[in-house]
């Protein structure tokens, strides 16, 4: 079973905190991988918040393929960070040869482009890179987006941390939002892309659960948007539904919950907004989820939220201090990194709730 965690802070946080958060929950997962997405970057990326950063794991040939493609598309590299690794013998990690975090400036002819045009360009570029690198597993392009980096690897999270020296806290590689998960997808093939968190155009989602409407979701999502690909994990569907509802349809976040876990018909009937809720349930019936799930999501503006399936079959808890909010599958993770918090303010969201943390760390509880 997955364990998921997320940290949102007013200060820049080092990924070692995410490792700590997940480490104490290791009995609940199988230590088969580690993946994290960091939003609102600090350290060496802080000055480049407006420019897209490519998160890439690849072979030597893959580096060349990717750089050539980006160059041909007119992107100009402005910064590169290659994490220093510590390949000690005996570490449980199936490492790629290269891990690159490269920040690029937009192509010249995009200087005057709108934000939307740039966002579509970044997605198209990442999809192109992904397709090109898929051959012979030359590499994995996880994200290409301003102010976001992604790291995913197969192995024991502790050893992955050691390999990337993530246990050694510093102020070079930090973020205000970190989402993390410690398990490769063991339901299907072990594929790097299959590890959540998943990322698309500023949206991040990770989940602990089983989506039994996976096939229904996939069959619709495939034709909804060019970016809805892969489907290596049933949890990817949550990201795509979030992206579709919030970005493509432009609906407020509160409707995400209405889409994935619609209210029972008899409850909708009692509501003032029943016309809208019926219409949503009808038109988006194939994005409904079923089965046990807890979802954590991050929006492009770094708002973080969590919600559960309609039966609350998976745990989640939210703990907070003055400057940090942590969401975790198990409370032991929060105890690890916020030992001095007032645990009586911890929240255990219920099945009809979306808990939203805004950029002032105010915690909102929305009842569906």
């Amino acid at each position, binding site marked *: *079973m997955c364990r998921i965690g997320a940290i949102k802070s007013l200060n820049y946080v080092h990924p070692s905190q995410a490792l700590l958060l997940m480490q104490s929950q290791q009995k609940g997962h199988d230590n088969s991988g580690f993946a994290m997405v960091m939003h609102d970057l600090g350290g060496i990326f802080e000055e480049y918040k407006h420019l897209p950063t490519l998160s890439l794991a690849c072979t030597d040939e893959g580096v060349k393929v990717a750089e050539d493609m980006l160059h041909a598309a007119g992107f100009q590299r402005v910064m590169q960070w290659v994490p220093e690794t510590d390949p000690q013998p005996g570490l449980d990690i199936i490492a790629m040869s290269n891990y690159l975090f490269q920040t690029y400036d937009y192509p010249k002819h995009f200087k005057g482009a709108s934000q939307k045009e740039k966002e579509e360009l970044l997605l198209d570029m990442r999809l192109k890179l992904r397709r090109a690198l898929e051959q012979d597993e030359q590499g994995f392009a996880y994200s290409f987006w301003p102010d976001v980096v992604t790291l995913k690897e197969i192995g024991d999270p502790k050893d992955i941390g050691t390999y990337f020296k993530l246990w050694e806290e510093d102020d070079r590689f930090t973020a205000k939002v970190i989402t993390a998960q410690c398990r490769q997808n063991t339901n299907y093939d072990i594929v790097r892309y299959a590890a959540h968190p998943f990322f698309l155009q500023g949206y991040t989602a990770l989940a602990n*659960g*089983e989506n*039994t*409407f*996976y*096939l*229904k979701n996939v*069959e*619709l999502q*495939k*034709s*909804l948007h060019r970016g809805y690909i892969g489907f290596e994990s049933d949890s990817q569907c949550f990201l795509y539904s979030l992206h*579709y509802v919030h970005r*493509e*349809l*432009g*609906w*407020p976040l*509160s*409707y995400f919950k209405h889409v994935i876990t*619609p209210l*029972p*018909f008899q409850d909708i009937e009692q509501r003032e*907004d029943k*016309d*809208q809720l*019926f*219409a*949503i349930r*009808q*038109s*988006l*019936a*194939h994005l*409904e989820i*079923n*089965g*046990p799930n807890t979802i954590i999501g991050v929006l492009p503006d770094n708002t973080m939220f969590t919600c559960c399936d*309609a*039966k609350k*079959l998976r745990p989640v808890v939210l703990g907070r201090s003055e400057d940090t909010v942590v969401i975790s599958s198990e409370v032991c993770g929060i105890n690890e990194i916020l030992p001095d918090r007032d645990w009586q303010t911890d929240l255990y969201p219920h099945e009809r709730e979306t808990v939203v943390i805004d950029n002032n760390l105010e915690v909102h509880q929305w009842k569906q």
Partner: protein
Amino acid sequence: MEAMKVQDITPNDLPWKVRYDAGRCTLCGSCVAACSFRAIEPKVERRRMVFSESDFPEPKQRFSAVPVIRQTHSIRNYCRGCGICEKVCPNDAIGPVRNIDTRHPIVTRCLGGDSIKRGGRKNLEGSARTLDKIRVGRISQMTDPSLDAQRHTFDLLAPFGRIMPPDRLPFQIGADGKLETKDQAPPVRWIYPVIIGDMSIGALSWRMWEAVAMATAYLNEECGLPVRMCSGEGGVPSRLLKSRYLKYMILQIASGHFGWNRIIKAMPHMVEDPAGVLIKIGQGAKPGDGGLLMAQKVAEHIQAIRGVPKADLLSPPNHQGLYSIEESVQKMFLSFNAAFKFRVPVAIKVAASATSVSVFNNLVRDPYNIVGGFFLDGIDGGTGAAHEVSLDHTGHPIVSKLRDCYLAAVTQGRQGQIPLWAAGGLGKTGDLAADAFKMMALGANGVFTGKLILQMAGCVGNDQGRCNACNTGLCPVGITTQEPQLVHRLDPERVAQNIVNYFLAMDTEFKKLMAPIGNSSLPVGRSDALVSTDRAVAERLQIQYVC
């Protein structure tokens, strides 16, 4: 000895022989009185009796005339095997026996010079049903728990009405950050996923039709199951049209337009909108054929409702003016949507055919968003009257065609926009919940059923040629006849009770199927939940093959 007449009909030529035991018969006459087909009659036989009256044997003989029951030797009044004689016999002295040596299909044609007509379903049983080769094989266990069928709340509802693509919903965001509706959207009704299929008043006796309507109202008002009933082609009693129960009725219009004069005249007096309008283009049991109501069933009240004289009522095989899907169906849909001021969903019913996907694609791409449902009826569906050759040899099985339509919608990302409703032999084995559930997992939003409803009422017909006499107006159990003495055999309250109980049982069974796959809403399109032990079926339907 007189020369043998080999062309004469004898019971051995007929599909059923009547077993009769004169020794058990008390000559009460019940069987003869009860046989609506007049397939048995009293007869006097000359019997010789040998007896002795003295102390020592002194055989004498006596001849006497003995009344007995005999099977008629006629292709007009032949035994249908309905077994009513057996049912009424107090002494188990009589009953029908299937005659495997029957020459009926040949002699009937030879003597009548006309095609054979009958009711019921396809009677050619080739192989096991496709649905019986499919099982619900994806069981939730461990991390993805099964649900508790008894305690969990399930949402057992299906849409009827045109569903807009999400990006075309008429929404805007209001000042309070909530979605507001700024324009009209097509009407959609959420109803029980099993519709009581279209059987007309005319095909059914008034008592039977009333019993089904009563059951429908009871299921809605007392049991909380929003079951809808389709009127069939042939109108609706005025009293019902003007009552609040109209909201449970789907009004059907077919090529004969029978009954619509009354419906239109009743419109100003309607206090509720009907549940929907179903435009019948075709029927699975006899695709390419219109409705057929034999004159013997056109009783006075049928003449009144339909506005016709006593004559064979044949609906044309096609709707007037139906030349292309794009133009004619749109026109029909528009007019019927407009008739109820776009408040009532309008759907279309067609017979499954090799071309169904093309028709469905045209409707799915319809720019007016007015097609509120695609009802697809397969070859195993029933009918009140059809030519046997149509029943047995024309048509298309429902399972793969339904699946094809669903997958065609998936390819375009338009699944669910026109709800798919399937029928045609579902519940044939008596277990509609299982069949319906499997059809839904293959992509149906719901199913509709007709023949099974008759069987709930007491229909003794089956798919091995038993009875199948719905066309004759002589239904022995009062379901498909307008003869008052036959109709009175049917107790409408008991029929309604049976239907209600069946639906309640089916509702429980739906939950018992949804619980193990861990779903609280209907598993529409969840083909991953199905497995098949037949490789060809698995491949054709794109589900997992298991062995």
